[in-house]
């Protein structure tokens, strides 16, 4: 059953200038999909359309058959930067989505502490963001997105600014947490290896359009072995070729005149 369905959704900044151009895409429940593409290809915009932060100018996006018109409580979003509130502790940052709805209860605090444990931050819940490293801040941001137990998690290059080792750790944590709850995920990245490692299916985006999709058949759970397996390398190469093969910019018919 398709959990998210994107039906020829477009987003135009002005008529004739589309950032997202008639995209069709479905994500079955519990699957992990990655969207790869160069900077400026419209992948962040597509993610914001799915989140309900932007409205498509044509087409529709449905979650469980309901058209997305505004941000939904069922959806968690992780931004490119951790976007933590500097004046709150790590724990209060994780509790933010709940504390905007009601006064956090003791069991909410326990849940937040548990999540911080799961992302490897036990003992740091009292720290403020400035006293945390970049990787730790990203972990807090993920815990915050998961506290409401969203059925769908949208992530916008959350690990782009981290070093390679930290990024691999966070990828493993994310896979573990999402598998635990059967969360459906749409993950935007420009990192080919990251996309292959995380995803069940990868879509290549270029100039607002989807050009290629690739099913990743690596067995789960994936670990260090998977990253260096010949199959992994072969899939990376195939994805890279797909990205190269995508036409750079469709040339308009009247370009010569």
């Amino acid at each position: 059953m398709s959990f998210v369905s994107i039906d020829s959704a477009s987003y135009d900044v002005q008529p004739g200038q589309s950032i997202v151009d008639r995209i069709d895409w479905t994500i079955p429940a519990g699957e992990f999909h990655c969207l790869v593409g160069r900077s400026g290809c419209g992948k962040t915009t597509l993610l914001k359309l799915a989140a309900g932060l932007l409205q498509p100018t044509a087409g529709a996006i449905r979650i469980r058959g309901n058209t997305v018109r505004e941000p939904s409580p069922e959806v968690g979003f992780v931004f490119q930067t951790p976007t933590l509130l500097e004046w709150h502790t790590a724990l209060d940052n994780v509790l933010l989505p709940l504390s905007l709805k009601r006064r956090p209860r003791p069991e909410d605090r326990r849940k937040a502490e548990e999540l911080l444990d799961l992302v490897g931050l036990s003992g740091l819940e009292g720290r403020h963001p400035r006293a945390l490293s970049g990787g730790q801040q990203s972990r807090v941001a993920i815990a915050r997105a998961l506290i409401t137990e969203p059925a769908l998690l949208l992530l916008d290059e959350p690990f782009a600014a981290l070093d390679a080792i930290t990024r691999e750790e966070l990828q493993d944590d994310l896979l573990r947490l999402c598998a635990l709850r059967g969360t459906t995920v749409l993950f935007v990245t420009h990192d080919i290896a990251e996309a292959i490692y995380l995803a069940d299916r990868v879509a290549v985006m270029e100039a607002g359009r989807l050009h290629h999709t690739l099913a990743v058949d690596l067995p789960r759970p994936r670990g260090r072995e998977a990253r260096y397996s010949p199959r992994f390398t072969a899939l990376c190469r195939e994805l890279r070729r797909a990205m190269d093969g995508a036409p750079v910019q469709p040339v308009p018919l009247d370009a010569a005149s």
Partner: protein
Amino acid sequence: MTARIGSALLLVLLLGGWELYGRLSGIPSLVVPLPSAVLQTLWDGLATGFLLPHIAMTSAEMTLGLAIGCAVGFLAGVLLAEVEGLRRLLYPYIIASQVVPKLALGPLFIVWFGFGMTSTVVITALICFFPLLENTITGLGQVDPNKRELFRMLRATRLQTLLRLKIPAGLPVILAGVRVSVVLALVGAVVGEFIGGRTGLGASIIAAQGMMDSTLMFALFIVITALGMAFYQAAAAIERWLLRRHWTN
């Protein structure tokens, strides 16, 4: 530490040079009084209690003016930052009113509120109002767009976004406005008393001028400087306390 000793040494050197020059040149004390005489006058003023009611009056005017000016400036700033239409309607007037020399309104306030404390408090409040208005509008306006989007994603109400995001995020800028207001409040209170005060440090300066007592005037400068520094340090301490969570663990 070395820098502090250096600063203190410089002060001693300057005062010593001043004293020496004053004694050797025989310059009349009406023009430039000797530092030793100024300190003596200051000490007498404090010991006899002559200066205390004036210090209390100026402090009270500053505190009241600051409190009223900052509170009104902050609330008006929040209102203008939140209501786009109102801001666009009033912005030309705000710019214009920034340029008006507020102290020039002093005589008018005496017509309206009479001689004494009220006029001075009103002038002080008016002067403190603008830095807070300006900095509140700026502070609330420059919130990280990602954080706004986060609050939209979490479906926060407008009031929640204001109270839980915009005001805390803009607090450093708003408090910088408070610090500017503190400095201006002293100017407001002293000059306000020049125009319409009977008691207070500014009024005492005018009285000392009438008596051609330059030594007392210099002693009053020292008191005013000390008062200003005390208020400034207090404001800086409050700022550090409020922002402790913004910067450190």
